């Protein structure tokens, strides 16, 4: 899977969880850029991403996500080659 495909999937997941029809995510997007992405919805987003890809994140990994790019990179690392 390519980084672009992961970004597309993640955008769709964010749209569903945050209930937003219009949402444009880039690797540089942070929580501050997205209305509704806060400490309350953050774990729901992580859970939705895990369920979609059938992967599990560690707390140490999640804490270090500074932007969407970090999240996508971690997903790619966990997906089978």
């Amino acid at each position, binding site marked *: 899977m390519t980084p672009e495909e992961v970004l597309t999937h993640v955008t769709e997941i964010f749209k569903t969880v945050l*209930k937003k029809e219009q949402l444009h995510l880039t690797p540089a997007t942070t929580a501050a850029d997205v209305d509704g992405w806060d*400490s*309350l919805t*953050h*774990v*729901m987003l*992580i*859970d939705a991403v*895990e369920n979609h890809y059938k992967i599990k994140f560690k*707390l*140490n990994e*999640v*804490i*270090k996500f500074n932007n969407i790019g970090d999240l996508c990179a971690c997903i790619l690392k966990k997906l089978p080659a």
Partner: protein
Amino acid sequence: MLFTSFSFFLFLTVIYLLYWSLLKSRKAQNIVLLFGSYFFYCAAAMPQNKIAKLLFNFRFEEAWLNVAKGFNERHYHILQLFLLLWLSSSFAYLMGIALGKQKKEITRKWLMVLSAVVHLGVLCYFKYFNFFVQSFVDAANTLGWQILFSPEHILLPLAISFFTFHVLGYTFDVYQETYEPADDYVDFITHVAFFPQLVAGPIERAGHLLPQFTNPRSFSWNKMESGLSQMLWGFFKKTVVADSIGKFVTYVYASDASSGSNIILATLAFTIQIYCDFSGYSDIALGCARLLGFDLLKNFNFPYFATSLTEFWRRWHISLSSWITDYLYMPISFGKRSWGKWGIVYAAIISFTLSGLWHGAQWTAVIWGLMHGIVLGYEVLTKEVRKKWSQIIPHVVYSVVSAILVWLFWAASQLVFRSGSITKFQALWSRICSESLFTMPYFSAVKDGLMWGGVLFLIEWIQRKKDYGLDLQNTNYMIRWTAYATIIVVIFSSDNLNNQNEFLYFQF
């Protein structure tokens, strides 16, 4: 030594002059701050009259006689305080080094657990030992076990809750590899003991404050003016508003004859008192640090303008709520993420109940935290419904009604918290539910404080996009200095200037 005392003014002047005269040596500046901070910490544990005597009426022969007599209980307490602060920060430094060097995950985890057990163990002994044992004994006696317990005489070390969370946050950050371990011992222990934030926060993060100790500082007139004006705003909040209201609140809560209407008035007034007291303290701390070239974390962001409790906690005691979010709420909600929204509700309730316990070793504090956790959980579950309402109802009406509801809930929770014990709360509640609720309360006893509180909130509303109420640095020179002069006159005209009261958050 209170921030509002003359002895603090003298102390700050000496430190300030010495500190900036050593501009060429960052290390020497840090040494001045280290010794100054330890002196401040020990002096904070001394009564005001003792400090005044030390500063203005020092007699060598008398001091020598006292030394010859040996240490009394107070001397031991001050020595104990100093050792506790020094050992706590030194232990955190060593654990940081150990965590940084260790590569095996399991060993790192055990080091983190050891560090947490030691820091929390010390905190629990000093702050919660009597509370936990007494609660256990009460529960056992209710079951008919007949256990006798006399509470231990344990003096609560000043600021222990604040510096314990400060160093624990550092340890967690190093463990989670979000921050590199500190390498300079003096810089590290100085940043923990740094006097403006030591006694009642903001609870600093090493990642924010420590680099400021390892980098050189530069003097700026703008920073000096900004620091002094924020201190001035803090003095105004504390001396003119909080202390005026505080007398009435203390009287009403202490008296067994207070009417229900006076209890309601005192509780509403207490919300203004606690805001002006604690945010005033934070303003003085931030301003004082800025005078020395440091930026501390913003601790308040006009919380009474929040339109939900979730937003309120992003604006009130921000350094504690972000600490709780990062090190308690996040791990708990992450562990329960498969529960969906209920996992978040669960994490909010647990985190805020523990936050209540941090505020005081009493059941009313725990209930206070639980109340906040439950309402935060309610807000998580009703987020979408409330969003729909906000789109139907005109924006101004929705915002004003929501802000008032948040404030009323805050006041109700403060009634529980301020009562201090379940028995006292029951007594207050029974008077609120009596006919005395419909008598006229003593508005005249609190009118000055409420009037100045109104002025303060009006100014803060106008300045809500700024960092603090008196943040006027980009305003016209004449307006700015007229405002400063007016605030100084108001502070010096206040009767409370001569009757200094401790800051409420000192007890935590």
